[in-house]
């Protein structure tokens, strides 16, 4: 079976490499792609949408329908992970570990009925990974605000520089994952609850699709942002630029929440008790 798979892979690879000889050479100005459509985007993007970054304009405006379903695919991946992994009924672990914060002593509590609710000098720690890392915790706590600021910059500045909703959303989600890795899953979940994450996921997709539907209601095509000019009180060209920003925020929200959702489900086996 393994040899059969290898033969199929090699044959397909050879066929693919053979067909690349028919491709126009890299960066060829006379290839079909760069003679009909690309010149229009390169010459007209700035005057039609007032967005200097052509990639962002093509991604969120000219090919907005495609990007909307990319966001939906990411949302679907998060929902699939949730349905496959999440354990609906919460099962308490057999025993818990607590650390006395002043002396560093570790307590193992087996009878969970006698755990008091308010423990000022104790903190709960994971049963699998218990060392106390002051350096890692401090460095991550210092870094996370700057990572999140950079992510917001990437989302908001996608018109002028590389970046946009997808990249910014992933970086924003990665900052929450870093918090979950450096502290523990419970600390990260206190900042962003599971239910709120799931709602944000859907809200992101809703912002994108809702903007498109709003354009439809205002009398133009689906996702034709120049229809928003009457609401935003700007001219239609600036409205297209603002419309791109609105959908990028939607994409960023959906991607951020989905990344955190997938990570939480994988790292805690769907129990949301103890993470990586």
């Amino acid at each position: 079976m393994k040899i059969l798979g290898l033969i199929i892979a090699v044959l397909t690879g050879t066929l693919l490499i053979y067909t690349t000889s028919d491709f126009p050479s890299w960066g060829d100005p006379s290839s079909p792609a760069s003679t009909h459509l690309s010149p229009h985007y390169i010459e007209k993007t700035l005057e039609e949408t007032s967005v200097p970054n052509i990639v962002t304009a093509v991604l969120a405006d000219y090919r907005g329908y495609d990007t909307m379903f990319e966001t939906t695919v990411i949302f679907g991946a998060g929902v699939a992970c949730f349905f496959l992994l999440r354990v609906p009924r919460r099962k308490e672990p057999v025993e818990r570990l607590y650390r006395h914060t002043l002396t560093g002593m570790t307590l193992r509590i087996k009878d969970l009925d006698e755990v008091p609710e308010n423990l000022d000098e104790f903190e709960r720690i994971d049963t699998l990974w218990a060392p106390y890392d002051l350096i890692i915790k401090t460095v991550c706590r210092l870094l996370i605000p700057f990572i999140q600021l950079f992510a917001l910059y990437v989302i908001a500045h996608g018109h002028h520089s590389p970046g946009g909703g997808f990249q910014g959303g992933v970086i924003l989600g990665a900052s929450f994952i870093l918090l979950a890795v450096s502290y523990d899953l419970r600390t990260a979940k206190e900042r962003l609850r599971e239910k709120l994450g799931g709602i944000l996921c859907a809200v992101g997709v809703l912002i994108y699709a809702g903007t498109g539907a709003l354009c439809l209601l205002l009398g133009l095509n689906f996702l034709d942002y120049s229809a928003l000019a009457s609401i935003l009180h700007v001219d239609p060209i600036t409205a297209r630029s603002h419309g791109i920003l609105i959908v990028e925020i939607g994409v960023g929200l959906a991607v951020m929440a989905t990344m955190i959702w997938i990570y939480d489900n994988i790292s805690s086996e769907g129990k949301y008790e103890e993470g990586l």
Partner: protein
Amino acid sequence: MTWQLDIPILTLVVVCAIGAITVKDLLGSAILFGAYSFMMCLLWAIMGAVDVAFTEASVGAGVSTVFFVAAVFRTTRRTKD
């Protein structure tokens, strides 16, 4: 195209890809896949596709490696075949 940069990076891409599917240790495989993504990100950047390179660096080399490590942590580290 700057072939002096392309040839070493392309070689590393192939080495990382073959390494990622042959290594028995799944954690090592995840790290090699992250290295593969980073090399691809460098290739996109050389070809001028900065947006694609940015996405590859954040999604491919960043978050997906974390997902793989989390999955290895919750399952088994050695592959069965």
